[in-house]
């Protein structure tokens, strides 16, 4: 497709539009503009702009100044700028660095919060990403996180074991809990062909009620308490804090990064990963090549579930150690889907996307506290980012970026001129 316009543009009789040197320079620029990273960047920008529109629309001051827009437009633009600027600056300072911090700890605290919040997102996002690449749409991270938290938390506060062993067992327990829960969907898909989307959605709901029920039974409920809350996780089963007690950042974040490396190795360097990808790319071909699609399905779901279970462990053994509640998974399971999408199901991408969304979430709380802009704007920005990322042609159309493999602007212009010349040969001759 890319060759055709080029030959057409270089027809004899057409002027040569650009010199060789110019072409090389443009080639590099084009390559940059065509890359998926630029699309990602512009998608984030577009989503932030749309978020800004919402922030401005709901701002009282902007609304009043818009009332007399034609009398004094400058007032409107000032109000607009300050509303959006304040909100986004608070978001940034809540997510990365707090410029107003009095101590060094306060200044860097936001970035550690971002890492803490992103830990479950990275874990679960990695699992969902593996599913995507194997052609499975696992919406069940939410339920798998809950089951991981149940089992991890239960191991944590039930047994009394030496320091290292206790944490290890609790973490393994969390992974097993998530893996077993996800395997239900995997086994059903492999044996009966049950749609994994529906089964995992249903398992999410079952998990919510299951934890609600278990928190009213002696298995999870703290003794002598009427609320549905478990006993706190003992220190021996907690992830050690990385930067001392001033920060919430714990070893779970490092584990998440390690998991990303392991997932990279698994998907890119191991036989198992090759099978996963082969089944995802073309299950019929994979079957013909002698792979068991059913077996791969069960494995993928189990691994994805184990990673989601680890996300649950990051919560119950790291961030929220005061006791397991029904809200342990928050909306991490659903956010992780968008994280995996944004990260294009690759481990590095997922880590970066997890950090971005973790930052948006951590910063969102700061923004809500400082400027009163509700944190829900973060959801809007997140979903717009994913929508734009999923539709690169849309982003390219908005920002007039070149299409990969498509004609350059100069070529298009030449093409148009040629078409015009062909359509009106008489007028061209007269003008000549």
């Amino acid at each position: 497709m890319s060759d055709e316009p080029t030959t057409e543009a270089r027809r004899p009789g057409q002027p040569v539009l650009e010199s060789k040197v110019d072409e090389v320079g443009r080639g590099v620029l084009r390559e940059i503009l065509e890359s998926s990273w630029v699309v990602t960047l512009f998608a984030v920008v577009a989503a932030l702009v749309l978020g800004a529109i919402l922030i401005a629309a709901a701002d009282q001051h902007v609304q009043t100044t818009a009332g007399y827009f034609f009398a004094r437009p400058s007032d409107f633009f000032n109000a607009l700028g300050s509303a959006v600027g304040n909100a986004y600056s608070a978001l940034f300072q809540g997510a990365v660095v707090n410029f107003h911090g009095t101590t060094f700890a306060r200044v860097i605290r936001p970035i550690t919060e971002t890492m803490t919040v992103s830990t479950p997102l990275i874990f679960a996002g990695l699992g969902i990403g593996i599913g995507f690449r194997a052609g499975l749409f696992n919406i069940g991270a939410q339920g798998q996180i809950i089951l991981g938290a149940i089992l991890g938390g239960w191991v944590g506060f039930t047994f009394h074991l030496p320091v290292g062993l206790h944490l290890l067992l609790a973490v393994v327990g969390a992974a097993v809990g998530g893996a077993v829960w996800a395997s239900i969907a995997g086994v059903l898909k492999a044996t009966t062909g049950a749609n994994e989307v529906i089964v995992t959605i249903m398992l999410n709901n079952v998990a919510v009620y299951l934890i609600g029920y278990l928190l009213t039974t002696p298995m999870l409920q703290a003794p002598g308490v009427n609320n549905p809350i478990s006993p706190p996780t003992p220190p021996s089963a907690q992830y050690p804090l990385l930067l001392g007690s001033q920060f919430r950042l714990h070893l779970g974040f490092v584990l998440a990064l390690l998991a990303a490396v392991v997932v990279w190795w698994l998907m890119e360097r191991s036989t198992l990963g090759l099978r996963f990808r082969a089944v995802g790319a073309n299950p019929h071909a994979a079957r013909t090549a002698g792979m068991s699609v059913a077996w791969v399905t069960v494995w993928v779901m189990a691994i994805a579930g184990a990673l989601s279970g680890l996300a649950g462990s990051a919560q119950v053994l790291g961030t929220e150690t005061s006791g397991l509640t029904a809200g342990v998974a928050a909306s991490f399971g659903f956010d992780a889907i968008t994280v995996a999408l944004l990260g294009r199901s690759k481990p590095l991408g997922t880590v970066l996307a997890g950090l971005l969304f973790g930052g948006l979430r951590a910063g969102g709380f700061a923004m809500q506290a400082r400027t009163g802009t509700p944190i829900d704007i973060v959801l809007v920005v997140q979903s717009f980012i994913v929508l734009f990322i999923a539709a690169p042609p849309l982003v390219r159309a908005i920002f007039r970026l070149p299409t990969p493999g498509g004609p350059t602007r100069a070529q298009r212009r030449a093409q148009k001129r040629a078409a015009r010349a062909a359509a009106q040969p008489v007028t061209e001759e007269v003008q000549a």
Partner: protein
Amino acid sequence: MSAPTTTRTAPAEPRVAALTPISWKLPIALTVLGLVALVFFGIVPAGGHHTTFRISTASDAFQISPVAVPSTATALVLSIVALALAGLSWWAAAGRRRLGVWLPAVFGVLWVLAFLCWAGAGKTIPLTGLLSGALFLSVPLVFGSMSGILCERVGIINIAIEGQLLGGAFLAAVVASLSGSPYLGLVAAPIAGALVGVLLVVFAVRYWVDQIIVGVVLNVLVIGVTNYLFSTVLTNNVGTWNRRTPLPVLAVPGLSEIPVIGPVLFRQTLLVYLLYVAVVILQIYLFRSRWGLRLRAVGEHPKAADTVGINVNRTRIRNTILGGAVAGLGGAFFTVGAGLAFGREMTGGKGYIALAAMILGRWNPIGALFAALLFGFSDNLQTTLGIVGTPIPSQIMLMTPYVVTIFAVAGLVGRVRAPASEGIPYTK
């Protein structure tokens, strides 16, 4: 549905070769359930209690006195009849006879009655209230599953039902509150749903984005936008933007006086009557009209549809937007339908349940209606038993429909088959 096709296309083939292996799933499942009912509702509980079923509501013209039955004896009889039905299904399966859906349906009713006898021992169960509440709670599920059917039959997977419901609920509340008329809210709700439908279909058809991804993201987007507007605009001035404007109950004269059926079916709001109309129209038009034929052709085999001159993408766009509008109308249930003000994420995952109802109903409007009613019933049963007091924890009750759906999707109820080309963008 597949049986007549086989006989029509291959009448000459020897019948023996066409025989499929006997499926014992249904008889086994029914027998196990029947035995559970027999043992746990009929034999194990101590006798001597009575379960009272209240049939009339206070406002009925003809009052029927409540029926009190001995709990264990009735449960015993009901479960024995249910087991007899299970035996019938063994006989049918062994002889490869098709008995239709009435058998599991009647079995289900008997089982639930036996369960109610047990759960309501020594108490009063308001039967009419239980049923009318079930219909009421299933309204968004029915509209949602109708939307799902419209979209999936035309080849677009609509995971965004949840978002369409939420958008409909939001706009219905705002418009009804601003105008003071709940009926204007009913008019506005489909617009919000259709807008979500537009986004879904634009990304699915124009940009070929994975439809499940778009659906999931649109759900998050609608949650974000409605939450944001709720906590900024709506809470700033509740009296103007988010007043409670309930739809009035319109009793159909005459019909609403029939015992049990009257209060359940004909003493409802306009939204419920619209639901009857929607299901009937969809069931007829989907299978008996040119529009329905084209819609299904596009969803099953778009290339063939294109060959005979049907514009595939235009058909998809129009019907997905229509589907969004239907789900949006269902969203009105949460605010004007239920007489509540708008609240954050008030649809609470009902869109996903609607999706399950659609699959359980095998992409058929009537089937989906009954599946949705099943969900609505179990939801309301939990509430009712919560009020009268029950031996079962409420979470286990709430969990049941989801577990049932998993079993259903896994093929215990029968293999379900989605429209062949759903989720695949059409390119020439």
